[in-house]
């Protein structure tokens, strides 16, 4: 018994890692195999959870004609390349890589597998067999801003940021512009937690903001903890990625929900029909790539009507969340009246609009 030490353990570890890396079974008759690489656990109730719902939509749409595989909690970097390569070499015809940090590994593996189609979420590098896709979440932030502007009494809004990257800054700005459109006195306090997912820290950040007078809490992190903290303290909150109503039925104003289902089904069908083409998709409310969670029944009728109208106006193109005039924090005009920011400016956004407090960390 004495020799039973490191070796068998390492064996177990290896086996466990292998099992983790390959939920994929052996190839069945002829179904189209679709693979997914996730950055978090499917049980995060946020980003990865919503992608997995998209995967299930594919299974539902095509039944036995497809076989889906997913690998969860894959670290961005070298590990990702190994997992993507493994999926590509085990007969998967379409592979969705669902985090920004998978960009280079995806492009690299795609070079060695020209017959496999790759779909990379939130990135900007395309190739003949690599498409990119993401959603215009800032459209949802615009609607949240309108609602918050009407609902706040303290005129202080708390915003929990993950990392100061353009995607998150864009959300803060879209929110703040809409907020001050209906309530010029309101300002936004931003707290960065430097993580996408840490329920304890996100909850503590929400409480800190509430203690500093915020009575509406926004989050660009993935757990429902901020909504829960808002409920506990009796203030409003806007959820992220999924409908978080049941974590704070009283506090939850709405949530900006990611909806990948339609896109995933379409792209899978394209591969099955042989007409898949590489492209860059940045879908918004009108494409159904995001949706607003049911609005809180406590919203006054006029606020509800305003939110619904804004949804319709964004879909019809009548309203652009980044319409001028837009001033930065120093009061300098960045966008003149009558113009709006183009996608290039949105994708590289690294400045705060007027009304956001504090300095953007670089």
């Amino acid at each position: 018994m004495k020799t039973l030490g490191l070796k068998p353990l390492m064996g177990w570890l290896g086996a466990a890692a292998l099992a983790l890396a390959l939920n994929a079974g052996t190839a069945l008759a002829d179904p189209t195999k679709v693979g997914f690489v996730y950055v978090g656990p499917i049980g995060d109730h946020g980003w990865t959870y919503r992608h997995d719902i998209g995967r299930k939509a594919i299974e539902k749409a095509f039944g036995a004609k497809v076989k889906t595989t997913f690998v969860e909690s894959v670290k961005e970097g070298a590990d990702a390349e190994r997992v993507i390569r493994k999926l590509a070499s085990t007969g998967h015809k379409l592979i969705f890589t669902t985090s920004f940090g998978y960009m280079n590994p995806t492009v690299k593996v795609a070079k060695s597998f020209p017959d496999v189609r790759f779909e990379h979420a939130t990135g900007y590098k395309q190739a003949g067999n690599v498409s990119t896709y993401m959603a215009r979440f800032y459209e949802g932030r615009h609607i949240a801003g309108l609602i918050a502007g009407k609902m706040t009494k303290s005129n202080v809004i708390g915003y929990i940021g993950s990392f100061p990257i353009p995607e998150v800054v864009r959300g803060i700005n879209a929110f703040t512009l809409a907020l001050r459109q209906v309530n010029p006195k309101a300002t936004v306090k931003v707290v960065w937690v430097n993580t996408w997912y840490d329920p304890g820290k996100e909850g503590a950040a929400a409480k800190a903001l509430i203690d500093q007078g915020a009575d509406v809490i926004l989050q660009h992190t993935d757990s429902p903890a901020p909504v829960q903290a808002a409920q506990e303290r009796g203030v409003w909150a806007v959820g992220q990625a999924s409908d978080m109503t049941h974590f704070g039925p009283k506090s939850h104003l709405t949530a900006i929900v990611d909806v990948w289902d339609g896109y995933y089904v379409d792209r899978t069908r394209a591969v099955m029909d042989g007409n898949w083409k590489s492209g860059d998709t940045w879908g918004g409310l009108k494409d159904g790539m995001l949706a607003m969670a049911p609005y809180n029944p406590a919203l006054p009728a006029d606020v509800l009507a305003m939110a619904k109208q804004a949804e319709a106006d964004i879909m019809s193109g009548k309203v652009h969340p980044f319409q001028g005039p837009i001033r930065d924090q120093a009061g300098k005009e960045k966008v003149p009246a009558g113009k709006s920011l183009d996608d290039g400016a949105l994708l590289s956004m690294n400045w705060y609009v007027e009304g956001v407090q504090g300095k953007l960390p670089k």
Partner: protein
Amino acid sequence: METLAAVLVTVIGAATPLLFAALGELVSEKSGVLNLGVEGMMLVGAVCAFAAALTTGSPAAGILAGAAAGMLTALLFGVLTLSLLANQVASGLALTIFGVGISALIGRDFVGTPLPRLPLLEIPGLSDLPVVGRLLFGHDVLVYLSIAAVPAVIWLLDRSRTGLILRAVGENHEAAHALGHSVIVVRYLAVMFGGAMAGLGGAYLSLAHTPMWAENMTAGRGWIALALVVFATWRPGRVLLGAYLFGGVTVAQLHVQGFGVDIPSQILSMLPYLATIAVLVAISADSVRVRLNAPASLGRIFHPDS
């Protein structure tokens, strides 16, 4: 002042899971067993506490289930390292990986389910006092339990016969064995105590701090607890200080950001780690005393028949 009290209440919430886990690990390490699986045990405790509280509707059942689940997970570690004499470091790491996986499996059906927060024990009259009322008398049972555990562990280790034996086993297991003490039994008990405490730390997260289950919700707190034990030089009082310092700086840096102070948030995020290490290293600077506190047999495998 009311705001300050509210801030301090948040600090207590951030510190309590660390305090539980670190105290448990301290006792385990004092007996000579280095269990790196704290993170895994906390997760198993968190998910089992949540599942039990949700299905039975009883918070007490949740707390007990959390402690029991942590203890069972630790027992597994005990079997590997104490009976099968596996390497403690490797087994501890494996235990964490195992805990992450099994907690996700158990929690599959609980993702996205809310739970009412663990009730606060309010003392009529006292809890309504301005400022100190909420700060001293408005917490849930786990917060009080974690604080009470500090003097209890001090007494156990420094004043009781059991503690004397436990420390003897941790210092020199051959000598303790020669004196007729059962090294393996003592270590099993210490490891299981550590597991139960880690389970309670997890239970605090899933029942009180953020009453929900989400995969990997401990987010590294088990590792922080492990580091606290070392930096506190295996002394329960300093573990208490370290846990509250860490929780305090974590919450304080969020407030500093909210006030718009011009310090990069990345640096502020590092502060809890830096401050805790700096303070604990400073008060533990006497290297002789550190060596006296560190269990000499820590991490060494005991062969009963050698």
